[in-house]
């Protein structure tokens, strides 16, 4: 097949000017990997400055509680204590400022889920329509069900079944029991199997109580990919849309649509239309179209 001249015709918008970068993605892989390694090594290393699983973590003197799990326990026990406020406040504030960064940057279950996603057949790895819209209601209902059941049964289900807890408790319990902890291992295996065979990454996107609450806690001022429409030169199926692990179109995203601030879309944006902190200049023509940056001096 030969290229006909029309193929090379200029479009009404200039071509993309920046190559995809790995700025955020590389750091994200690094933090995900080190969290996983830390948890695999933790029980064996005899470290004392970091203890607990990702449901209740102690970093030095700082006591951190995952808000959904803590709230679930408070509902189950029908008590309120200072621990609830003091432990969850730092975590909730971080979620307000940065969104559910735990999911994309730290959670070992999220890391496993991402890895398993690569094993899915290609035709199961396509998003159709606007996947972030349909999942909104699922996310809220699942979180509400977790809290209602915790209250009704007197059992902190959002802590017991939280994927981040299961993933980080496994090495710890294996070390304590000098064997494979059957309950934790089988719960984790069942959830991972659902993640692999069920709707694409539904546990991380909607069913995990920790992720769902962190998503709700995101404040309007939070760090997230923002969109400068006047700079965008991409067609409907843009690199940013393809980069998003949740199939969200960052150009249409609303505050609580499930973005986990992985910033892959910002990395992949060719025109600088997606940004995090500093809005790009209004005049795109001054930017170099392609090639290396001009030499200094």
């Amino acid at each position, binding site marked *: 097949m030969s290229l006909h001249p029309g193929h090379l015709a200029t479009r009404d918008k200039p071509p993309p000017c920046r190559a995809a970068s790995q700025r955020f993605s590389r750091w994200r892989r690094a933090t995900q990997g080190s969290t996983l390694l830390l948890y695999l090594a933790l029980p064996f290393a005899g470290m004392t400055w970091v203890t*607990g699983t990702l*449901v*209740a973590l102690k970093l030095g003197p700082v006591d951190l509680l995952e808000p959904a799990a803590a709230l679930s326990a408070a509902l189950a*026990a029908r008590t309120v204590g200072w621990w609830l406020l003091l432990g969850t406040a730092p975590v909730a504030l971080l979620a307000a400022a940065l969104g559910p960064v735990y999911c994309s940057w730290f959670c070992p279950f999220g890391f496993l889920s991402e890895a398993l996603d690569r094993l899915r057949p290609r035709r199961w790895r396509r998003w159709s329509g606007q996947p972030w819209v349909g999942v909104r209601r699922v996310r809220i209902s699942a979180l509400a069900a977790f809290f209602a059941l915790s209250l009704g049964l007197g059992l902190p289900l959002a802590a017991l079944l939280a994927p981040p807890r299961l993933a980080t408790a496994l090495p710890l319990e294996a070390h*304590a029991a000098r064997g494979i902890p059957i309950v934790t291992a089988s719960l984790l295996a069942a959830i991972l199997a659902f993640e692999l065979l069920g709707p694409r990454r539904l546990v991380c996107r909607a069913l995990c109580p920790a992720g769902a609450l962190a998503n709700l806690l995101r404040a309007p001022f939070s760090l997230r990919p923002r969109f400068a429409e006047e700079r965008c030169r991409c067609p409907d199926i843009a690199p940013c849309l393809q980069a998003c692990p949740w199939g969200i179109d960052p150009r249409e995203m609303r505050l609580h649509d499930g973005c986990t601030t992985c910033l892959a879309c910002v990395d992949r944006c060719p025109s600088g239309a997606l940004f995090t902190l500093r809005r790009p200049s209004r005049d795109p023509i001054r930017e170099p179209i392609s090639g290396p940056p001009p030499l200094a001096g």
Partner: protein
Amino acid sequence: MSGSAAAFLRGLVAPPPLRPPGALDERAFDALCLRCGRCIEVCPHAALRPAGLGAGYGLGTPMIEPRREPCWLCMKCPPVCPTGALRPIHEPRDADMGRARVFEAGCYAFQGILCRTCLDACPLQGEAIRQDAELRPAVTERCVGCGLCERHCPAPGSAIRVVPRGHRA
């Protein structure tokens, strides 16, 4: 509804296990415990383990099997609990985990054999277990149920066993 449903579900499974020192009552403990594993992690004797499916509601909560590894009353676990499911106590005498019970049929001392293994193993020497006039062990009110006696009893299957506090209720 919740109270009776919980009681029913709990009745279906095994009786409550031996808890770490300072644990709240079973129901409150199962509700408040986040299963975070900090107490399990901090235990220097690997005495604490997460309960399995047999524990029903207590699934994943810390428990002690004294015959495998008893509690040495080092009191490291109560302060690390993030929700207060273990009250932050420091004094071994306040541990209140249960109480040891002597099963006379198996106990050597009750059969006229000189044995004071449980008395020697007891961390609350002379307080929790005393010898009566016939040199037989007698558990007192001061026993906190650590299980060291159960672990060390030479009789087959242990003639002295801890009854967890949850059983008394």
